[in-house]
């Protein structure tokens, strides 16, 4: 590492201005791939640069992650390098605060900690205690047993876990999760997805915390001592004809005898189930050089395989980490807590005491305010982290606001939540959706119409606010995913889905924020049948 740093610096010359400060660092314009930050040669943080807005010169200012801040006191050499090839981008000595010791970012007992590009603390297996590893393996064995005994599925340790087991009989040091897979009893992706729903429910019924990520993949969270849960990923594998599909990276002609009957492999001193021909499966997953360790390995998934998985199983967690991080304060963006101009515009239009459903409530700023004004409010959002915080605020203030999850990319959660709301809240209801539609892709918008149809058909109105196509060229305070919607098109979609627009207001000056004055559209919609 040191030689690499020295040789690079010799070749490029000194950095013209400091790029490291107590608050963050400045990435040069050309950096756009995952980037690692090292303190005294030890990796502490990985950055996804594209998430940060470039300034006029193209440089990106990136604040230190919240979880790293408490450790930033003292001196260190900050090295910034590309993750995939370890090319040093710059290196600077920096003194944080008034400390005179070397900066250390460690867990209990000096255990190595790394903040991943999502802003979460990860502890690679190589640095986890024996107890933690044992706990994780106990859970993995329990899941394998449930899959086998209760779901009737042949399941094995897979991907990185299988690779570590076959190579060395252990977890791969830089890995930080456990992978399991099962062979589906179905060949049609629809049936594979239904089976995965059943698997998720069965695991939950046994008290495990499960998140169904797609129709062929779920993740079980195992709590750990450092706060960030360690995942055990469960993947479906299935045959279509003679092609084996391993979620979501492999589609290869592999005989069934390569999988069944299952054999065993030694993994961390335990005998674990493994595919019949581990070498054949690992070659299909990682290529012919799978025996040679490669920490920078990246899947080169064939386009046809990627398209199949995306089409078959639908990614329903689109950008959820972004929202978790935004509302968790990890992106350095201040989210206002006071009511929005749209909320203030809607309030006088509400019947006294009318129930409000705040769809896409974010940090609950408007939900809490409606509740303060005497409207029982249900805040619904995609991000569990923000819902937890909003619940606490409501409870502390004794407000009639409840919060629950909804994922508008998942048809099942959309219609189920709509059914619950329609049963529990008296009609007519008001659905309030501020700055929601332009954050959604088409399938999310289409599910939003379904939600409105189910909650408003017995009366009530929806108030919708979104960025228009005219806003695209206007200045924005923060970068981030957003679409710019043509109000005419949205009105047409609403009509086609069974709703009627009864009021429409658009233009700038309606929702100013810091130095931004977006062009927006406000619609009042009914959906009565």
């Amino acid at each position, binding site marked *: 590492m040191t030689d690499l740093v020295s040789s690079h610096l010799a070749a490029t010359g000194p950095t013209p201005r400091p790029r490291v400060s107590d608050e963050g660092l400045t990435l040069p314009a050309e950096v756009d791939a995952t980037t690692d930050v090292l303190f005294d040669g030890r990796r502490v943080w990985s950055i996804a640069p594209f998430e940060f807005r470039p300034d006029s010169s193209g440089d990106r200012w990136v604040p230190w992650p919240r979880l790293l801040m408490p450790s930033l006191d003292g001196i260190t050499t900050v090295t910034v390098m590309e993750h995939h090839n370890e090319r040093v981008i710059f290196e600077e000595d920096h003194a944080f605060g008034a400390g005179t010791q070397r900066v250390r970012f460690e867990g209990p007992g000096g255990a190595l900690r790394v903040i991943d590009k999502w802003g979460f603390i990860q502890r690679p297996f190589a640095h986890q205690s024996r107890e933690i590893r044992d706990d994780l393996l106990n859970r993995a064995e329990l899941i394998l047993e449930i899959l086998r005994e209760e779901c009737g599925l042949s399941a094995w340790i897979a991907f990185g876990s299988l690779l570590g087991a076959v190579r060395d009989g252990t977890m791969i040091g830089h890995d930080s999760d456990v992978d399991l897979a099962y062979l589906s009893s179905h060949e049609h992706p629809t049936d594979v997805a*239904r089976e995965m729903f059943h698997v998720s429910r069965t695991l939950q019924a046994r008290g495990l915390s499960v998140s169904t990520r797609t*129709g062929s993949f779920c993740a079980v969270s195992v709590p750990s001592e450092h706060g960030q849960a360690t995942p055990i990923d469960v993947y479906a594998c299935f045959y279509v004809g003679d092609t084996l599909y391993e979620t979501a990276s492999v589609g290869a002609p592999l005989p069934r005898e390569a999988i069944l009957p299952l054999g065993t492999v030694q993994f961390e001193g335990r005998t674990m189930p493994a595919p019949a021909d581990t070498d054949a499966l690992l070659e299909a997953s990682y290529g012919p050089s799978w025996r040679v360790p490669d920490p920078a390995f990246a899947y080169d998934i064939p386009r046809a395989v990627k*398209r*199949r998985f995306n089409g078959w199983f639908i990614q329903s967690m689109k950008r959820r980490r972004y929202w978790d991080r935004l509302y968790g304060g990890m992106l350095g963006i201040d989210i206002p807590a006071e009511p929005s101009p749209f909320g203030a515009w809607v309030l006088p239009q509400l019947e006294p005491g009318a129930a409000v459903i705040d769809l896409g409530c974010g940090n609950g700023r408007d939900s809490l305010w409606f509740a303060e004004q005497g409207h029982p409010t249900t805040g619904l959002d995609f991000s569990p982290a923000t819902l937890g915080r909003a619940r606490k605020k409501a409870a502390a203030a004794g407000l009639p606001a409840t919060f629950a999850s909804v994922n508008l990319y998942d*048809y099942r*959660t959309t*219609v189920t939540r709509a059914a619950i709301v329609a*049963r529990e809240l008296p009609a007519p209801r008001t659905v309030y959706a501020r700055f929601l539609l332009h954050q959604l892709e088409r399938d999310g918008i289409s599910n939003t119409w379904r939600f409105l149809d189910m909650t408003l058909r017995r009366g009530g109105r929806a108030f919708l606010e979104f960025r228009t196509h005219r806003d695209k060229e206007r200045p924005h305070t923060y970068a981030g995913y957003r679409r710019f919607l043509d109000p005419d098109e949205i009105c047409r979609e609403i009509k086609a889905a069974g709703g009627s627009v009864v009021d429409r207001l658009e233009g700038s000056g309606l929702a100013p924020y810091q130095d931004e004055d977006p062009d927006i559209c406000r619609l009042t919609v009914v959906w009565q049948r």
Partner: protein
Amino acid sequence: MLSVMRSAGRLRERLDALQNRDDEQMRRMDKMTKQLDRLAARIEELEEEIQEERALGMRVAQLSDIVQELLIPVADRDEKRLKELLGTYADSL
């Protein structure tokens, strides 16, 4: 002199013929380029259509899950069970 003029005439004829052939080839190239563009656009369109069809499979899976887990108990008109199921089903997603 006469033979020079004849040669020049023949050369002009050959040049004209070549020119015509080039024009013809250019026209054919143009046509082929347009056809290729049309085919590329068609492939893109077909790929989108295939993805739309693939997504249908997932929607069928989601709908049949809802029918199996929620609507069958509704059909049984078991109100207590339905309320309980709505809660547990939502929590399980």
